[in-house]
């Protein structure tokens, strides 16, 4: 199965960016080695990745192909489980792929790649090193002499706006400042390609915006001696704001589902109608193309291999109430809800799809539509809600009816957790099985379809029912 990325040209920004091309003139001093024109800085060819070395284990990445050219910022946009971070680590040489090739600057990657520097979601600074020392470590690893090391590190610190913080320790800095150190540490190496692994998602909204636009300014003004940028994110607006091209990844297994060129001029304004239209369009793509947003038939067919996301019943009820109420009256635009709730796309889609899985809603083209039981749920009292939820749980989630049946068949109406754990692990990884069981337990407790005792790690039917 070979899915070539479909190029969906979003011809929304009419004027081409003024000088993006000219800004890409090769920098004077120790920048990346000039490449023969036409050779992309990054090529990923037919990359597959499985969970582990077992050839029967599930695929994380399925036949991924992509390229990044010089002076491009490309986004890998996808939900959790789309394997985008795994792909980034394969490109960085931190993980090896099961099959396929990756080449950076024309050289095949096997082991940590030379022309690559990465910025981490968690900042990943050494708490015991000062800002200056943190920025220097990469140069130290390359054996750069101390004087030059210091000079280059100070220049990078200056550039990224950390002047005056050279001797501070990371714990003395705010999150935004820490991530700036993360950027400086990567930039000082003048990498051919800069890998950004959700670098803004651990920051609050305002800080993230500042660091993001500062980075874009440096990039746009040509101050950065880096060849290209590959950004991993689940934030659609961030991808649209920053990138020249967006690769939308689908989940389970991860594939490149769509490719979108963004030609809006910089600086991009989020309230601009063209910007909003593009965001809506991508929302639609992400909800339409998801295979693991199963309808009733798929859910039931999946049987015990159905992975359950650990979403609290409070959140499920909250979303149903919100969509049921004015002004939505049962149908809502997901981007609108996302910004109203200050909830990330990823989290919101997870909740919406859980509702779909339970037969309470349909998620289509970036919209969520409540089904009649959900509207009834939204307006009902607690015990009616619990009954409704229990009915849907037992009808829609094979694991729920399975556990209940086992408990009913056993004379003492009890069953140990490992019994179901091993059963689930035939179909999914250990962590997925764990999350699925956790979700199952919390939903079942709410619906009172069966109980779970954490001390003894046993499922049992409710005492009342036993009597």
């Amino acid at each position, binding site marked *: 199965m070979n899915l070539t990325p479909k190029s969906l040209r979003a011809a929304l920004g009419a004027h081409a960016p003024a000088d993006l091309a000219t800004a890409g003139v090769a920098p004077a001093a120790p920048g990346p080695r000039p490449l023969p024109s036409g050779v992309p800085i990054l090529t990923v060819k037919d990359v597959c990745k499985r969970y582990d*070395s077992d050839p029967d284990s599930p695929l994380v990445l399925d036949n991924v192909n992509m390229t990044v050219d010089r002076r491009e910022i490309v986004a890998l946009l996808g939900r959790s489980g789309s394997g985008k971070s795994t792909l980034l*680590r394969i490109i960085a040489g*931190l993980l090896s792929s099961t099959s396929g090739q990756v080449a950076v600057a024309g050289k095949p990657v096997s082991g*940590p790649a030379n022309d690559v520097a990465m910025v981490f979601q968690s900042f990943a600074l*050494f708490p015991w090193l000062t800002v200056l020392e943190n920025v220097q*470590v990469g140069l*130290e690893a390359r054996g750069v002499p101390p004087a030059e090391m210091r000079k280059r590190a100070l220049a990078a610190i200056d550039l990224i706006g950390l002047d005056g913080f050279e001797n501070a320790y990371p*714990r003395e800095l705010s999150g935004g400042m820490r991530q700036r150190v993360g950027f400086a540490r990567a930039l000082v*190496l003048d990498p051919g390609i800069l890998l950004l692994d959700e670098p803004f998602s651990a920051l609050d909204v305002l800080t993230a915006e500042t660091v993001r636009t500062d980075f874009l300014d440096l990039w746009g003004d040509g101050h950065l001696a880096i060849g290209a940028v590959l950004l991993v994110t689940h934030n659609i607006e961030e991808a649209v704001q920053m990138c020249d091209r967006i690769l939308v990844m689908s989940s389970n297994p991860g594939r490149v589902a769509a490719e979108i060129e963004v030609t809006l001029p910089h600086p991009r304004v989020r309230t601009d109608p063209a910007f909003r239209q593009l965001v809506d369009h991508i929302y639609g793509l992400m909800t339409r193309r998801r295979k693991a947003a199963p309808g009733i038939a798929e859910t039931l067919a999946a049987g015990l291999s159905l992975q359950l996301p650990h979403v609290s019943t409070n959140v499920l009820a909250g979303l149903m109430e919100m969509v049921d109420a004015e002004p939505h009256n049962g149908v809502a635009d997901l981007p609108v809800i996302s910004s109203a709730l200050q909830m990330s796309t990823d989290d919101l889609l997870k909740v919406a799809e859980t509702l779909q899985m339970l037969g309470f809603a349909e998620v289509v083209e970036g919209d969520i539509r409540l089904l009649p039981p959900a509207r009834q749920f939204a307006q009902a009292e607690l015990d009616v809600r619990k009954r409704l939820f229990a009915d849907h749980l037992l009808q829609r989630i094979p694991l729920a009816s399975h556990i209940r049946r086992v408990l009913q068949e056993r004379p003492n109406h009890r069953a140990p957790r490992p019994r179901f754990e091993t059963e689930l692990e035939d179909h999914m990884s250990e962590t997925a099985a764990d999350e699925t069981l956790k979700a199952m337990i919390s939903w079942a407790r709410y619906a009172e379809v069966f109980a779970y005792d954490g001390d003894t790690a046993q499922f049992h039917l409710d005492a009342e029912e036993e009597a």
Partner: protein
Amino acid sequence: MTMHVLHGGRDGLGSPSPLARLAPSRWDMVALPLVLGLLALLVFGGHEVAQPLSQLERTPITLDPWTLPYYALRTTLRMLAALGASLLFTLVYAPLAVKSQRAGQILIPALDILQSVPVLTYLSFTVTFFLGLFPGQVVGAELASIFAIFTSQAWNMTFSFYQSLRTVPSDLEEVCTGYHFSTWQRFWRLEVPFAIPGLVWNMMMSMSGGWFFVVAAEAVTVGSTTITLPGVGAYLALAIEQRDLGAIGWVILTMLGVILLYDQLLFRPLVAWADRFRADTVQAEERPTSWVLTMVERSTLFRTLGRPAGGAARATLRWRLPALPRLSAPRLSPRAVRMGDYVWQGALAVMALYVAVHGIQFMATGVTWGDVGHVVLLGLATMVRVVVLIVLAAVIWVPIGVMVGMRPRLAAIVQPLAQFLAAFPSNLFFPVAVAAIVHWTLNPDIWLSPLMILGTQWYILFNVVAGSQAYPVDLRDVIANLRLRGWRKWRDALLPGVFPHLVTGAITASGGAWNASIVAEAVSWGDTHVQARGLGAYIAQMTTDADFPRLVLGNVVMVCFVVLFNRLVWRPLYAYAERRLRVS
């Protein structure tokens, strides 16, 4: 357009002129005499070690109090040498166990066993070897003594480092890999710094543990001759032999001074320095400080001396060994790897069997089945003592610790005191116990027991205080709000909250008590010997008698008891506390 061009004119951090940098600061007035003094002591102590053995016979130990500072110097140098050796051992052993899964399969259980073998045993088995290294020289006896102290210090440090290595944050590991750190650079930039806080804490515990055994370690017995090295331990032994209470008082006084000194000069600076290696990124309100550390950091003397050394050390981090030709080893299939594991484990099993067979053969030369039963019973007796004492200590110290922990000002006084008491070698007080037992003709099986936990009970207090300091303020408000009182308040709110800390403290205390049993179950005062029935007394006796088959038997039983006790009691308890009761 590059950064270099943009900021080319800039030079450093606006550093002052070189001359200003060399001007002495007021800290130098303290630093200079201190450094010169320490250097002189080091040279003096070192000179004394390089003497022939006959020198020792000409100058026997005396009870003159004025010799005590000199003895204290010798003992402290021995302790520090052993600590250094322990550190070196730790830095090599733990990485081996972590980096190679197969090496770990043998190194970690070995460590478990090594730490439960009593110190005396090491001494009696290695003396001849060390004396043989430098025949007729004091150095040989010194080395044997240092090795004995080393065996009381190294293991917990190694465990601590091993634990740290296994919990290094994965994102920092990715940085090391992604940014092409060499193994050497990764070791010093990530792994060691990450481990430092735990390591420093364990070094302090090791130092305390070492003092406990110094008495035994300074008397080196070979066959019928005993070489007594000048030191505090030897002085104490002589004082006990001659029933000189005054001399014992002088030793206690000296020890107070010594502990205060190395606490101020060594451990406080270390703790304050180690604080910067805490991996969390929140800023603590109160951070440990030390005037010595401040002096080292601010005085021109240290900075001038330190710069070239620091520069040289950092230079090694930039070393790149010429890349080894990449072995295009075929990627082994999972099955091949599994086969390799089987072969390795098989080899280990054969080796273990070989050692076991030889050990049993050796024991069979002087041990009967009756002995085995007897020794197991003795082990049970010692175990009962340990359990009862830990429970007693918990009953006493938990309420006190919680009270103290809830009052920050009191805690600020009690914490260092508990730490100090833990560092104090409690065996200095043993003679008092003997005198009391003899005077009132008490039952030694009961009344010697408290000595086992005299030194280590403080870890329980220390940890409980720390635990109740960490008790969440909102939960305390709930207790007040719901008017929880009396037993209910303790059972429902306070005890579960401090339980994980109590377990941590009790594990330390129990390990210490097992170790102390060989010293505490058989105590002397002049020619009065008081003995409790227990495994510790048995091992001590067999060591004195040089009855090696029975000594091995005693040790094997001791190791079995300690290891099983850890596996069957402490680990499950600790896991339970972590899982259910961790207040986070």
